[in-house]
């Protein structure tokens, strides 16, 4: 504590340099925070995906259907707790830019498989009774200003026509990052209006397991059951399914790592140079410290600590700004439901900041430690 005044006085020695060095840390960590948010926005679905759920799709492609009759056969496989199914609708609300995912769901099993979505019971019961009913996620309802009781017109794409829905309820996610952008309506309504060639077919199944450890065995069992049939299946965990979905956007992780590495390497060069100059300027002073009895180790830690403090102030500032910047939530209004700066990213950012601070300060600190008083005083 008694050395704090000494450290503070040294930090503010060159105010402009201090501000600029902190600024470079702040900018780098702000960028790190934003990159972490973008990475999370794309991969958040993977992190949050249920470990106890499997997704069963047509082996050819997800856009190819599967027979509804598979539901009973799959459910008979030991270890399966529940199964539900859904179809992608892909309709347009007013304008194509107003995208949100629309699913035709099975009202009997949906909530058993997806318990994380919370809907008031009365709203759910109204929805079950209403063949034209729909449930919207809270984010989508907020986005378009919908209230329960509103009539929502959606233009069908591959099924054609104008579809009108009564908004019977609004669901909320119970976990941070749960997707609140979906729009559900009854699968039976879609089935009634399906062309004959598509009758009795679903888009995919979601299977809830008794025990997540059985996922591999059950995946294989499902795919074996339908091997060599006209509708072969491909079964994977929900996590792997979400990861596959993210991969369609390209290797986001690699992109972020590359940009992040370049930024931090540049930062290391800038701050390392700054610290080296700062120490060189103070050669005489450091010699005085040693002359009056400060040890080599003290001088090493003193210079290193200064570097760490600068890094930490700048890093905290940058991450704080990134947090503020992303507090408004998803700027795409629904496409990126995981758009937030998680605590884990803040902790990682601070650790990274300290590492860069230590790396940039260590060489000047060692130089200061090795400084011989006699040589240094001769240079003054």
């Amino acid at each position, binding site marked *: 504590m*008694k*050395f704090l*005044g*000494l450290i503070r*006085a*040294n930090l*503010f*020695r060159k105010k402009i340099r201090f501000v600029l060095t902190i600024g470079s840390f702040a900018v780098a960590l702000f960028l790190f925070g934003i990159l972490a948010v973008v990475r999370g926005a794309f991969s958040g679905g993977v992190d949050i995906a249920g470990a106890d759920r499997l997704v069963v799709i047509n082996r050819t492609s997800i856009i190819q259907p599967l027979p509804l009759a598979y539901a009973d056969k799959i459910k008979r496989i030991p270890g399966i707790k529940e199964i539900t199914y859904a179809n992608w609708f892909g309709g347009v609300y007013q304008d194509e830019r107003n995208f949100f995912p629309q699913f035709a769901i099975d009202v009997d099993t949906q909530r058993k498989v997806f318990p994380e979505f919370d809907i008031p019971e009365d709203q759910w019961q109204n929805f079950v009774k209403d063949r034209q009913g729909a449930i919207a996620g809270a984010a989508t309802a907020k986005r378009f200003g919908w209230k329960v009781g509103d009539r929502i017109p959606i233009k069908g794409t591959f099924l054609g026509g104008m579809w009108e829905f009564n908004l019977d309820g609004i669901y909320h996610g119970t976990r941070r990052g749960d997707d609140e952008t979906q729009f559900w309506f009854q699968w039976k309504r879609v089935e009634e209006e399906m062309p004959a060639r598509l009758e009795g077919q679903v888009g995919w199944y979601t299977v809830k397991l008794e025990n997540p450890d059985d996922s591999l065995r059950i995946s294989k069992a499902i795919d074996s059951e339908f091997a060599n049939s006209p509708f072969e299946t491909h079964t994977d965990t929900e996590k792997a399914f979400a990861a596959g979905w993210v991969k369609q956007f390209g290797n986001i992780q690699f992109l972020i790592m590359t940009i992040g590495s370049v930024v931090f390497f540049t930062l290391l060069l800038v701050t390392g140079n700054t610290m080296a100059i700062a120490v060189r300027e103070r050669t*005489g*002073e450091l*010699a*005085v*410290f*040693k*002359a*009056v*009895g*400060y*040890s*080599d*180790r003290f001088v090493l830690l003193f210079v290193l600590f200064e570097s760490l403090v600068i890094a930490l102030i700048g890093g905290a500032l940058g991450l704080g700004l990134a947090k503020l910047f992303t507090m408004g939530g998803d700027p795409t209004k629904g496409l990126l439901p995981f758009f937030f700066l998680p605590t884990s990213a803040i902790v990682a950012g601070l650790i990274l900041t300290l590492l860069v601070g230590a790396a940039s300060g260590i060489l000047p600190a060692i130089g200061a430690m090795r400084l011989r*008083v*006699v040589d240094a*005083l001769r240079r*003054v």
Partner: protein
Amino acid sequence: MVRVDGGGGTSSLIQVRGLSKTYSRGGEKIQVLHALNLDVEQGEFVAFMGPSGSGKTTLLNLLGGLDVPSAGSITVAGDEITSMSRSRLTTWRARHVGFIFQMYNLIPVLTAFQNVELPLLLTKLSKAQRRQHVETALGVVGLSDRMHHFPRQLSGGQEQRVTIARAIVSDPTFLLCDEPTGDLDRKSADEIMELVLRLVKEHHKTVLMVTHDPVVAARADVTLHLEKGILVEADRLQTVSGGGAR
């Protein structure tokens, strides 16, 4: 009494025996000090004079434990410092030596008070005790009213007085002064010398000083000359080295 013949008793505060220092420069060996002997008693004021390059500052650095000799020994208050490790020497310096440099070497971002407090931060003194010591030291040098000024707000003479306060604040065994008046005008130099004399007479400090100024040197109890690495007692104009008079 100061002796340079190596005949001083073990009661001397500072005993130097056969001290040599050789530097290597560009493959060439340059011997700066040649087997010096020196005995200084507690409370004595010794001035070292000599031309540039004669080894005055080297001798001072060796006596202060800032440099290590090529041969010989230095014993201060019973501690042979020439056999100490670098870290032990650092601790020893903090307890026994007060440095006063020509260029003051104050920390520009610290106030006079903070500069004087520097050596005390290494002690176990409480904040209140440190404050008391610093105020006393600044009082001794007559700068009680300037303690919260930064070096840039002080004159050269005042800066040197802060340096002296920093040197005496931890009550060291002896003071080493390297051209303390070299950067000052005559009036300021006289003031500094008055202060140094007070430290010797009133506070019984032992002072070893390097100077080019004969007026300054004349205030010391004894003036020793360094000529080509050999110590010469000025008043006797007799060269004494390696245990015998020449």
